[in-house]
């Protein structure tokens, strides 16, 4: 399941080239979708990729489930939104403040919550997500309640306001690529190896000198912090937020992205986020049947690609090419 440990400069060079190649593709993509609606969808692919990576660090690497990540995403969005509208703070200041606040909160919550395992952890994080949702919904004075918070400013940099889909695309993907690079590095570092050790056996990891409890809480906080940044970016590109975007359903959608894309793979998170964001657009032609096809496709993918898209697609290609061989770990 987990990524095998690579060593040697060849593997590192390959990883680096892969990332550079991916970044170039991302930067060139707007050339093909100039001005169209697709740009707007790709902005959301970027935000969802960032969220999926954040959740993947927790779920795919450390093996700790969270059904409440939409709550952290929403908290980041609302904190940024409230700080920039009610208190007229600069968005560039509000974003890190929100991120640190959400990260610290998650760190504190993490200690009691991450003591739980399996179904109990799932239930606790689920509850957490629902509590956040209720807070967004009920504190009218701050959040505007169910009818939302509007008038959030766009981000600006050196006189450029990120107020169009193309500009937002570069902004969001700039952040997403940075998060990707960070996650890739983290995954192949000592911390990444420790996380995978905790994932496979917490006891064994502790015997080897890993402070499993603290590490789990730290990665939970980091994951929440990254989700909060995604939330702030979402708030500043949409310029409007309402609780419906941060409900339980979205937590499940994030989880699906990570699982469909491939647990413990950063590029897998991108594939999962891209698929789940683009699929409804592609299926829109099927009118009322889109939900059935959508569900069916997801089921087939989970059944026949248990390792996620990131391992399933290469396997499929090899099968089509008629070559036999073991499944390579991407």
């Amino acid at each position, binding site marked *: 399941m987990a990524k095998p440990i690579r060593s040697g400069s060849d593997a590192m060079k390959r990883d680096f080239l892969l990332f550079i190649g991916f970044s170039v593709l991302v930067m060139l993509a707007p050339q093909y979708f100039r*001005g*169209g*609606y697709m740009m*707007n*969808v790709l902005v*959301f692919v970027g935000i969802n990729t960032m969220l999926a990576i954040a959740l993947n660090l927790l779920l795919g690497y450390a093996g700790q489930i969270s059904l409440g990540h939409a709550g952290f995403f929403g908290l980041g969005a609302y904190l940024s939104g409230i700080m920039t509208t009610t208190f007229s703070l600069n968005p560039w200041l509000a974003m890190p403040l929100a991120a640190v606040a959400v990260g610290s909160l998650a760190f504190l919550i993490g200690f009691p919550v991450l003591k739980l395992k399996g179904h109990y952890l799932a239930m606790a994080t689920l509850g957490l997500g629902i509590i956040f949702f209720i807070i967004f*919904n*009920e504190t*009218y004075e701050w959040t505007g*309640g*169910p*009818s*939302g918070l*509007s008038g959030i400013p766009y981000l600006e940099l050196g006189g450029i306001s990120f*107020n*169009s*889909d193309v500009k937002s695309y570069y902004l969001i993907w700039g952040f997403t690529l940075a998060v990707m690079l960070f996650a890739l590095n983290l995954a192949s570092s000592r911390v990444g190896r420790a996380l995978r050790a905790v994932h496979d056996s917490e006891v064994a990891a502790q015997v080897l000198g890993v402070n499993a409890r603290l590490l789990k809480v730290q990665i939970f906080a980091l994951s929440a912090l990254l989700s909060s940044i995604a939330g702030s970016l979402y708030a500043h590109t*949409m*310029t*409007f*937020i*309402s*609780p*419906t*975007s941060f409900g339980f359903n979205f937590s499940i959608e994030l989880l699906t992205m990570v699982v469909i894309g491939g647990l413990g793979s950063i590029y897998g998170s991108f594939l999962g986020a891209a698929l789940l964001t683009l699929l409804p657009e592609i299926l*829109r032609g099927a009118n009322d049947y889109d939900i059935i096809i959508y569900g069916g496709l997801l089921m087939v993918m989970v059944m026949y690609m248990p390792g996620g898209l990131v391992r399933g697609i290469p396997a499929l290609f090899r099968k089509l090419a008629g070559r036999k061989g073991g499944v390579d770990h991407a």
Partner: protein
Amino acid sequence: MNFKVMPFVMAAVTLLFSANVFAAAPIRIGALFAVTGPAAFLGEPERNTAKMVVDEINRAGGVRGQKLELIVYDTSGDATKAVQLATKLIKDDKVVAIIGPSTTGETMAVIPVVERGHVPLISCSAGSKITDPVKRWVFKTAQNDSLAVGRIYEYLQKTKQTNVSILTVSDGFGASGREQLKSQAARYGITIVSDDTYGPKDTDMTAQLTKMRGSRTQAIICWGTNPGPAVIAKNAQQLGIKTPLFMSHGVSSKKFIELAGDAAEGIRLPSGKVVVADMLPASDKQKKSLMAFVRDYKKHYNAEGDHFGGHAWDAVMLVRNAINNGAFTAAAIRDQLESTRGFAGIGGNFNYSPQDHAGLGKDAFVLVEVKNKDWMIVK
């Protein structure tokens, strides 16, 4: 040989061009409705109505010889989806106007998109902040909550029942109602003696009602959408509360009477005129539109048209009228919408102006009472 072919070619080319002129591309109108999800009770009748009206218009030959094409997307009540789909309607489908979305939250989310894209939006949701302050490209057809509150308070003032209790649902609709109930009370000399809320999924409100029974309240006003108010009506009956019960326009459909059964008898509420269309005097300006809507909806879907569908009816007709007045581009349609005067629709008599993009007055609501499982107009 060539000489003989030429005329045919010429004729063919001419035909081709003229055919193009006659079968000009239809005028595209976009629509965003919450057809699925928690707000489906709004989105579904809205979509059905919008489709029906566009069909009827096209069957009658279109507008100024041009057909209309309605492109409907389902937002499932999600603000993010509404924004994506609004972008799609503007950039890919190149619509000249957008109808919807169904909820205030979605509408607020879509506003920056249409303001930037320069396409008129006619929202079917009620929140007063949609058109207050006025936005250049944004209109709405659903009546403001403030008008409904005004209707009830006016009646209470007249009948000298000035100590009231309010019980509102904790969602967007209830929150907006609560705000209006509190802010308008003083103007009508009303005192709010107790102010309680309930959750949208609560199944028993006896606690709140018991508290009100003990107070000196003369009228209870409940603000919510089905099924909560029906539960309240039943609870009040069980508790033997004799204090007059008032509801909001959120339950002005037969569904409420079905849900509440006997407990609905005697309950009063402000409602759009659609539920009492056949009881209106012939002098009412809206009567013609209302009767047409009710008749057509019955014919197409074999169901009662409600005022939610009416919001979509009004929106499509407003666009149709604008096009009929010679506006074919988004900008021209916007200007025409703004100069709409005296359009008698389902929601009321619309008079838009540069200062008012909501367009309705207090006459949009009538006070109705449930009698023998049907609506009666309260004089």
